[in-house]
């Protein structure tokens, strides 16, 4: 028994060392820009770089648009599949999982072939069009996480009976979806949103190949040309991810306070 406990703690310790040592090393290195001791100079340098602000703001905006339009796609789809097309659930789940098995570079090359300036829908022919294409790409990338989060939240409520109850009280589809279903799957929506935020903030392939000024390509550019700033940026990127995960946890806890029961 004691040996088993020792083994378990040993495994946790090895895992923690494997995860924390590089992180502590990166943090420590990011603080050594000044030769005479630790300082926040690398962070100062990053935050004073106008490109940092531009790319960070751009990626935040893209993440927000991805979350809004992604949810407008995912929530009604998951709802409709549960309500009217339960036999299609496995097909839809398979489709939403495809971005996990098809590399991002393959997807973006497909987009470039489909939507180049000489195609029927020349999205890459303008800045706005390319931005739209990037948002659509991000929606595709985050689909496995968003769909699963929303579908799991929907499983916790009796979607069919709630819909029928609302219908018998005179509600139309818009009211049912936005007042009866959406608020009850909010924990799933928020979970999906925070995962999407974390994915979009660090995404490189799509933004680089579509030549958009996103945070991911900026991280790569700084990493190739500077010494201490890349470590500071890596720590900032980790902080964003951890913040997202913390908010996700909060969202999950919120759903425990008000369990969705039919």
């Amino acid at each position, binding site marked *: 028994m004691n040996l088993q406990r020792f083994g378990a703690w040993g495994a946790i310790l090895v895992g923690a060392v494997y995860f924390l040592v590089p992180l502590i090393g990166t943090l420590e290195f990011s603080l050594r820009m000044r030769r005479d001791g630790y300082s926040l100079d690398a962070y100062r340098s990053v935050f004073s770089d106008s490109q940092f602000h531009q790319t960070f703001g751009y990626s935040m905006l893209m993440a927000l648009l991805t979350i809004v339009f992604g949810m407008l796609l995912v929530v009604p789809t998951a709802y409709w599949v549960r309500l009217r097309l339960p036999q299609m659930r496995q097909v839809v789940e398979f489709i939403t999982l495809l971005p996990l098995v098809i590399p991002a570079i393959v997807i973006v090359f497909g987009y470039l072939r489909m939507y180049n300036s000489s195609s029927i829908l020349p999205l890459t022919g303008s800045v706005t069009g390319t931005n739209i294409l990037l948002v659509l790409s991000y929606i595709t990338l985050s689909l496995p996480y968003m769909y699963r989060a929303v579908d799991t939240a929907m499983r916790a*409520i*009796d979607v069919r*009976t*709630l819909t*029928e*109850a*609302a*219908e*018998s*009280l*005179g*509600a*139309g589809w818009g*009211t049912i979806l936005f*007042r*009866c279903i959406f*608020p*009850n799957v*909010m924990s799933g929506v928020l979970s999906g949103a925070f995962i999407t935020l974390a994915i979009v903030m660090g995404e490189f392939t799509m933004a680089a190949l579509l030549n958009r000024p996103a945070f991911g390509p900026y991280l790569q550019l700084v990493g190739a040309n500077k010494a201490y700033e890349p470590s500071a940026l890596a720590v900032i990127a980790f902080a964003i991810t951890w913040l997202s995960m913390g908010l996700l946890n909060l969202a999950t806890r919120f759903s425990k306070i*008000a*369990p*969705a*029961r*039919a």
Partner: protein
Amino acid sequence: MSFLTLQNIQKSFGPVQVVHNFDMAIEKGEFVSFLGPSGCGKTTILRMIAGFEKPSGGTLTIAGKDQRPLKPNQRNIGMVFQAYALFPNMTVHDNVAFGLKVAGKAKAEIDARVKEMLALIRLDHLADRFPYQMSGGQQQRVALARALAVKPQLLLLDEPLSALDAKIRVSLREEIRLIQQKLGITTVFVTHDQEEALSMSDQIGVMNKGKVEQLGTPKEIYSTPRTAYVADFVGAANRIDVSISDANADGTAHIQLGGASILARNTLPAATRDGILIMRPEDLRLSANASAEAQALPGTVVKRQYLGGKTSYKLALADDTVISVESHGDNHDGFDIGTKVMATIDPSKAVVIAS
């Protein structure tokens, strides 16, 4: 013309027909129950009335208006579900107010109506609670208030008591019936529980395989079952194949059974001799009297089961027919196995139906 009419309603799911030529007419203000086992089609009919299922054939009218082209949200029908179906994100007040808000009523009117409804179900002190903070019985009362708040022309109850424990079920069924009578709202109630149907309804439609076997008042259904299925499903019954020996003009007939002759109500068509004798176990009276009496079946106790307030006996008659008898009152468990007894029955309590 009746308030709710269902004429020749049929419903098929793929190749399986679950409702066959269903006819029913319900008057305004009536409380009608569809009683039957799982899979008999009672909930399907209720869902067709609500508009959640489309009939494969037939007509459905409420107050003379054809309902088939109308969507569920256009029918003004209140519905209470087995699973309560309260909106988890809304308080009790907001749940009850939901239909009124959808209808675009003014805030003052909504608040007044919600207050009235919550007072009706005696939960006005819980207006700010969320559904998950309430018991099942309370949630179902809120669901009832929500359905009634919009002043529906018809109330549908889809096994609303099935998810509750026995004590709450009894008190809530009394409450539902009182509220229905107070408001005079036409109500269709679906249940598989005969006690609920018998205690609450003006009329009961006993259903079997998508058809109504018998429609009648609770007393008619219980005391004069028209088919063996109804006799079996509603309450316990002794079903004995008999041949009537002498049919009288007053609707009675003499039957030879277990070496005795008894008089029973006769529902067989003229010239029909063979039928099924139905006798409820609780309508038979046991006595130790060994001498022959009118309306008495001599037999021997072969099984006895003490059930607290009553005792259930099995009697073997002279021709080896075994009948069940329930004995109540003082000393109801006073007959041992092997005792010779007499089981007497009032002629009005024994009925011969077609086999």
